[in-house]
C-alpha cells in the first residue's frame, strides 16, 4: 500500500514537472524554428546584404532585393511616435493617480485603464484607420496619405499608455511616505515633491516601464498592418505609408507562400530580427529594475 502510494506520488510529480518543462520547450521551439529557417535564408542571401541593404523588395523576381533596413526604419518610426506620445501622457496619469487623485476618481480611472489595456489590437487598428486617419488627420493635415505612420504610431501609443501609467504608478506608490513628508516638512509644494522627489526616486521603475512599452510597440502587429500601409521605404515622413517588420510578416502570411521558398524564409529572417530586438529590450527592462532600484528601509 505504502509503496503504491509512493509510486503514485512520484508519477504525479513527474507529470507536473513535464508541464513546467513545456514552457522551456516553447522557448527552445521558438529559437529552433526561427534559427533553422533563418540559417537557410542566410545561405541564399548574405547577412551583410540583409542588414545593410536599403531596398526591401523580396517578391520582385529577378530584381528582388533583401535589405531589411526599410522595415526596421518603419518599425522604429512608429515606435518613436508611440513612445513619444505615450510617455508624457502615461507618466502624467501615473503622477496624477499616485499623488493627486482622490480615492473616488482613482477607482473610476483605474478600470478605464484596464479596459483600454484589454481592447484587442485589431479593434485599435480599426480605430486608427477609421477614426484617427479618416476623421482627424485627413481633415486636419493636407497631404496625409490614407495609410501613414503617424496614425498607427499614435494609436500604438494609446495602446501602451496603460502599461506605462500602471507600472510607473506602482513605482511611485512604492516610494516611502517618509520621503514625501520630509519634502513637505522642508516647505516643498506638492508639485516640487512630485517632480523632484518622487519621480527621481521611482526612476528605475519608470525607465523599465518605458522600455517594456517600447518592446510592446515594436512587436505590435495589427494596428500597423491595418493603418500604416505596406510600403517599405526609407522615409522619415510620418505622413507617408511605411511598412514595419510585423506588417511584412502579415502581408506574406495572407498570401499562400509555398514552404521552402525564399518568401517563406524571409518572414522567419524578419521574425528573428524582431525577436532579437524585443528580447534584448525585455532583458534590459528587467536588468534596470534589478540594478538601479532604490532600496529603502
Amino acid at each position, binding site marked *: 500500500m505504502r509503496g503504491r502510494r509512493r509510486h503514485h506520488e512520484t508519477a504525479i510529480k513527474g507529470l507536473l*514537472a513535464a508541464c*513546467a518543462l513545456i*514552457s522551456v520547450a516553447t522557448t527552445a521551439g521558438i529559437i529552433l524554428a526561427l534559427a*533553422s529557417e533563418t540559417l537557410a535564408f542566410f545561405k541564399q542571401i548574405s547577412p551583410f546584404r540583409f542588414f545593410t541593404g536599403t531596398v526591401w523588395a523580396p517578391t520582385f523576381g529577378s530584381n528582388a532585393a533583401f535589405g531589411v533596413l526599410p522595415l526596421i526604419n518603419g518599425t522604429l518610426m512608429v515606435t518613436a511616435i508611440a513612445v513619444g506620445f505615450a510617455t508624457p501622457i502615461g507618466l502624467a496619469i501615473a503622477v496624477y493617480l499616485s499623488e493627486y487623485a482622490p480615492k473616488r476618481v482613482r477607482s473610476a480611472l483605474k478600470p478605464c485603464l484596464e479596459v483600454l489595456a484589454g481592447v484587442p489590437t485589431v*479593434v485599435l487598428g*480599426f480605430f486608427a484607420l477609421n477614426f484617427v486617419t479618416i476623421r482627424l488627420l485627413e481633415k486636419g493635415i493636407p497631404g496625409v496619405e490614407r495609410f501613414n505612420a503617424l496614425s498607427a504610431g499614435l494609436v500604438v501609443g494609446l495602446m501602451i499608455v496603460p502599461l506605462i501609467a500602471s507600472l510607473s504608478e506602482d513605482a511611485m506608490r512604492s516610494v516611502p511616505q517618509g520621503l514625501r513628508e520630509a519634502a513637505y516638512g522642508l516647505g516643498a509644494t506638492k508639485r*516640487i515633491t512630485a517632480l523632484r522627489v518622487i519621480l527621481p526616486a521611482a526612476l528605475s521603475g519608470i525607465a523599465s516601464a518605458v522600455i517594456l512599452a517600447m518592446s510592446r510597440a515594436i512587436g505590435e502587429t495589427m494596428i500597423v498592418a491595418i493603418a500604416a500601409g505596406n510600403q517599405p521605404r526609407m522615409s522619415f515622413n510620418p505622413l507617408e505609408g511605411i511598412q514595419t517588420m510585423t506588417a511584412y510578416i502579415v502581408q506574406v502570411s495572407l498570401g499562400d507562400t509555398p514552404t521552402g521558398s525564399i518568401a517563406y524564409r524571409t518572414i522567419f529572417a524578419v*521574425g528573428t530580427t*524582431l525577436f532579437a530586438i524585443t528580447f534584448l529590450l525585455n532583458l534590459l527592462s528587467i536588468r534596470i529594475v534589478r540594478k538601479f532600484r532604490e532600496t529603502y528601509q
Partner: protein
Amino acid sequence: MRPALSAGSRKGRLSETLFVGALLLAVLIGVAALAALVISVLSQGIPRLSIEFLTSLPSRFAEKAGARPAIFGTLWIISVCTLFSVPVGIGAAIYLEEFAKKGRLSTLIDVNIANLAGVPSIIYGLLGLALFVRMFAMGRSVLAGGLTLGLLVLPVIVIVGREALRAVPSSIREGALALGATKWQTISRQVLPVALPSFMTGVILAISRAIGETAPLIAMGALTYVTFVPKALGDRFTALPIQIFNWTSRPQAEFLDTAAAGIVVLLVVLLTMNTAAVLLRHRFEKVPRS
C-alpha cells in the same frame, strides 16, 4: 531655501495650478480617446447588427456579410486553447510552487516564463507555423490554431496560477500534512480548492486576451475568407478578429460598418468575460481568510 520651493508666492501658486491642469489634460486625452473609440465603433456597428449578421456567411456584398463561420471558428480554437493551456498551466504552476526546489532549474524556468510573456504574439504564430502546421503536419487547422494560442497564453496562466497558490496560507498545508495526508492529497484536496477562485479569475482574463488575438493566427496561416463552419479539429478556419481585420482592410467603405458590427460582437463577448472575472474576484475577496 530656494525660492522655487516656497508655495506662498503668487507665481508659485500659479505653477501649482498649471501643473495639476497639465496632469488632468493627460488624463482627459486618455479618457477621450477611449470614449471616441467606443462611440465610433458603436455608432457605426450597431445599425449593422442583426440576427442575420450573426447567422449568415460572409459575402462580397457588405450589407449581406455575416460572421457565422468566424464566430464558430473562434469557439473552436478557444476551446482547444483552453483545454490545452489550463491543465498544463496549472500543472506547471503546482510544480513550481509546491514541488520545485529553489535551484538552477527553477530559476531557469522562472526567467524563461518571464521572457516568454514578453515575446511578441506574432512570433508565436511563426512557431505555430513551423511546429504544428509543418513539422507535426496538422495543416492550418483548428487544432494547430488552438495550440498556437495555447502556447501564447500558457506563460500568463502559469504566472496567475503561481500567484493563486502563493496566496494560500501555509497553515492549511501544514495542517493537512500533520493529519497524515500525502503531499498530493494536501495539494489536490486542500490547497487547490482554496486557490481556485483567484486562479479562475486570472484564467478568464488570459483566455479573453486570446479571443482578441489576431496576429499569431494570421502568421500560422488561418484563412481570411471562409464560407463554411469548421466541424472537426482538422478543418481549416477563420476567427472573429481575423474576419474583422479582413473587413477593415477592404477598399470599399461600406465594409468598415460591417467591421464595426463584428467589433461590437467581439467587445460584448470580452466585456461579459471580464465582468465575470471581476464578480468572481469580488466574491472571493468577501470570503474571510484564515
